Structures are given as structure tokens and as C-alpha cells.
């Protein structure tokens, strides 16, 4: 789904269009699953695990509370809301197990809800910083540093556009990316065939291409970076 459709669906959902809201939730089920799994650090199944239901409810809540003018990508905001709701859930679970009391639920007063929302927006700054640190760590797994990317960035705009396109193609190719994971090196010939770029260009811009591919390969992990680069 491209950004335009997401924005349109969001706008409609916020205006009260139930179908648009349902579509939005339905389309982002895998996103919710990824966020919840990364928080719980175990495999989960729809219909079996409460955490996934909480994630879906939190996503729906994010649709309600999202403010586009805050300049935070919607998915980043939704990720924060889901993580926050899950954290609440885990706290309550621990309390319930230790005291034997029932779950009080997420019913908040209006004031508390407002301050909680404000907290989520403030948290986004930290979330951005964490994403950038995560990106730097992901780069280092392939032996790439941000400092060298400064020198390796193509000077010409056309080259950059071509390489961004190639990185997107590469990110969508599971087989190519698996090869990359195993060997930590781009299969130049295969990439050349897939992207139409000459092997020489690919070899010359290997690290730059890889740095962009990492961003596009993990849209749920590098939400801010994905939303920032013009594709």
C-alpha cells in the first residue's frame, strides 16, 4: 500500500468511516503481528494469544489518536501505542498473578488519556533515536559505517534515484536478500539482471546500495527512515 492510500484511509477513518477503519486494520495485521512479536519475543498466533488482540485494539486506538500535524509517521505512532498498551497489559498481568485480583482494563479517564497520548507523542523522539541506533547496528552487521556512507553517496541525483529504485527491487527479492544474509555480499550479476544496472555501477556502489536496501527491506523496523526517503 502506498503512502497516499494510507493517508486517505486514515483521513476517512478519522472522519468516522467504519469501512475505511476496518480496511486499515485489516491491511496492517502483519504490521501489528511484527510489533507484538518483537515486544513479546516469542511466536504468537491469531485467535490464541491475547497480546495480538491487544495489539489490534491498540492499532485501532492509534487511528483515533493520530495527529498528522505532529510530523510523526502514522506507523511509528501506531508502533508506540501498541508497545505502550502491551506494557500496560504485562504490568496488569503480573499484578493479577501476584494478588489474584481481576484485570481492571484499560479504561482511562479523559485527563489520564490525554496525558497518556501526550506521553506517547513525547516518546516518539526517543523512538526515532532508537531506530537510528538500530539502523547503525544493522549496517555494522554488513561492515558498513555511516562515516563511509558519506564518502560513498553518489554525487549525481540521477545515480541516487537509480540506486534507490534498485534498492527497493532488491529489498523485495527474498532470494537475493537471503543470499545477502548468508554471504554478506551482493550477488552483483543477479542484482544487475534484476535492476538493469550495470555490474560496474553495482560493484562501485555496493555499500550504498546495501545501506538503502536494509531500510527498504524492513519497513516495520525502520519506519521513520522509510517514510523520510522519497521513493
Amino acid at each position, binding site marked *: 500500500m502506498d503512502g497516499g492510500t494510507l493517508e486517505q484511509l486514515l483521513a476517512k477513518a478519522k472522519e468516522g468511516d467504519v469501512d475505511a477503519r476496518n480496511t486499515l486494520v485489516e491491511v496492517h495485521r502483519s504490521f501489528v503481528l511484527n510489533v507484538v512479536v518483537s515486544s513479546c519475543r516469542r511466536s504468537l498466533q491469531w485467535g490464541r494469544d491475547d497480546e495480538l488482540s491487544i495489539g489490534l485494539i491498540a492499532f485501532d486506538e492509534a487511528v483515533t489518536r493520530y495527529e498528522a500535524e505532529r510530523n510523526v509517521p502514522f506507523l511509528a505512532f501506531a508502533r508506540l501505542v501498541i508497545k505502550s498498551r502491551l506494557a500496560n497489559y504485562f504490568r496488569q498481568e503480573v499484578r493479577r498473578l501476584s494478588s489474584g485480583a481481576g484485570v481492571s482494563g484499560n479504561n482511562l479517564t479523559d485527563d489520564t488519556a490525554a496525558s497518556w497520548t501526550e506521553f506517547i507523542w513525547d516518546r516518539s523522539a526517543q523512538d526515532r533515536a532508537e531506530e537510528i541506533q538500530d539502523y547503525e547496528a544493522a549496517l555494522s552487521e554488513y561492515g558498513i559505517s555511516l562515516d563511509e556512507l558519506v564518502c560513498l553517496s553518489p554525487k549525481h541525483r540521477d545515480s541516487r534515484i537509480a540506486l534507490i529504485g534498485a534498492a527497493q527491487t532488491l529489498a523485495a527479492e527474498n532470494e537475493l536478500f537471503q543470499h545477502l544474509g548468508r554471504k554478506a555480499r551482493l550477488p552483483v550479476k543477479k542484482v544487475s539482471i534484476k535492476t538493469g544496472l550495470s555490474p560496474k555501477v553495482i560493484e562501485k556502489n555496493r555499500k550504498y546500495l546495501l545501506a538503502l536496501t536494509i531500510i527498504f527491506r524492513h519497513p516495520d523496523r525502520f519506519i521513520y527512515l522509510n517514510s*523520510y526517503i522519497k521513493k
Partner: protein
Amino acid sequence: MQGMLLKKQNGTGIVLTSDGTYCRGAISEEALLGEEATVVPPRWRRPPLWLAAAVTAVVFLGLGAYRFLAPSSWAYVAIDVEPSVEFTVDRGLTVIGLKGYNFAGKKLASALGDIRGKPLDYGVESLLEKALAAGYLREGEDNIVMVTGVCRQEDERIGPEALANMVADSYPVQRGKVEIIALYTDTDVHRQAAKNGLSSGRYLLQQELKRRGVNIAGRVMREESLRSLGKGHNLVLSAVMDDTGWVLTRPESSFLERRQKQDVFYAAPVPVQKE
């Protein structure tokens, strides 16, 4: 340049612009990681033409001066006894380099120390003295010294006769027969010899013996003393090298005789070697 801040350190930062450029530059203290920030890339100005021309001129002048002032190798003089040592000399026959080709040669060259800047005859004299002290030349025994000259252009001072006389003049052994074989060859042979890890003299000897059907392995040719090479293969080395060089011999004489008169070397008639 505006972009998402990826790294911040000591007042500079790296941003990723929306069109995919990773850019470094000065950044404000308030900018936070992951937020959109503006960096000011360091200015790069094209150097003025006159500066480029001046730098080029200085480089060329420097190279010219270096070529003019730095000593360049003019000739190579190799001395072979058991040790194989080669002197590199400039046009004024001043030593500018010393190289040992075999184990004994390397040992002797290091014992000789740094003799760069000294005249060639001083170097040859010192080398022969060290060879005597180390037992490579022995009093009262038959000794063979081979000296080989290689020069970039024809130079009488590096010719076989001159080199043979230079060795004879500084020959330190008082008693016993000695044969000084002086050879001259060209730079191609010198290059080929160096490639095979041999001094030019030993290489010429190896090739000559090969021509006569005697094959001696490179390692043996490099490490063996000339005396044992001759004895081992029943060869008169001065005869083997016949018309390619110059031979000086000193016949065996008693110590008492020698004390009364000056050292005498004879330009030997080349002995006939039965093939």
C-alpha cells in the same frame, strides 16, 4: 543540507537527505538523533590556477633535483670467495650500496657495516680483510678470488684488468698461491643473475659450466666456496672462464722470501683446461 540526523559527534553530524544522500557537516547542539536537521557541509573551494601551477612546478623541480642530487648506481662490482658480496658504486666509484648474495656474504656485509660514501678500493680492501679474519681466505693455502664488474656504460675503471689489480693491491694474505679471476659482463646478465639469486660472477660461471655439460644447482653455486667448487668438479676455474676475463696469479712462495720483496702478481697465461 536538510535531512534526518543519523549521527552526532563534536558539533558535526551525518544526515540522510530525502533524496538519499548521506551528508556530513556542522550541526546545531539542539538537534536530536532521528529528527530533521540542517547540516552545513564544509566548504570546498577550487584552488586558484596559479596555486595549482606552482604546486606542479615544485613537484617537477623536486623530482629533477632528486634525480640530480641522489646518487644513482653506475656500476656493480661483485667479489666472490666463499662469500658473495656486491658493491654498488656511483660514477665517482663511491660505494652507495652493499649486498650479500649468500649466507656468508650477508654475514660479511653486515660485519663490514655502513661503508656508503667510501671509495670502492677501500671497500674491497676492507672486505678482503674481513674475509681473512673470518677464515674464508687462509694463510698458506690456495685461494681463489673472483671479481666481476658490471657497468651501465663502458668504463675502464670497472674493466677486468683494473678490477684484478684493485684486488691484488689490497690482497691481505701473505703466504700461499692465489688466483684472481676478473670478469666483466653487461647489465642484462647482472639482472638475470640477481633474479637467480647469484652474483654476476657465479652466474657466469654456472652458465659456462652448463655449456660444458657440468650442471651445478643454483643453491650449491650460491653457497659453495670457489675453491671447493673447483676441487669438487676437478676444474681450473681460471681456465673455465678463459677468454672472457683477466687472471692474475701469485705463485706459492715462502714467507721469508716474501718478506724481502714486494708482492708480485703475474698476469697469467690462461691455463688450458681439458674438456
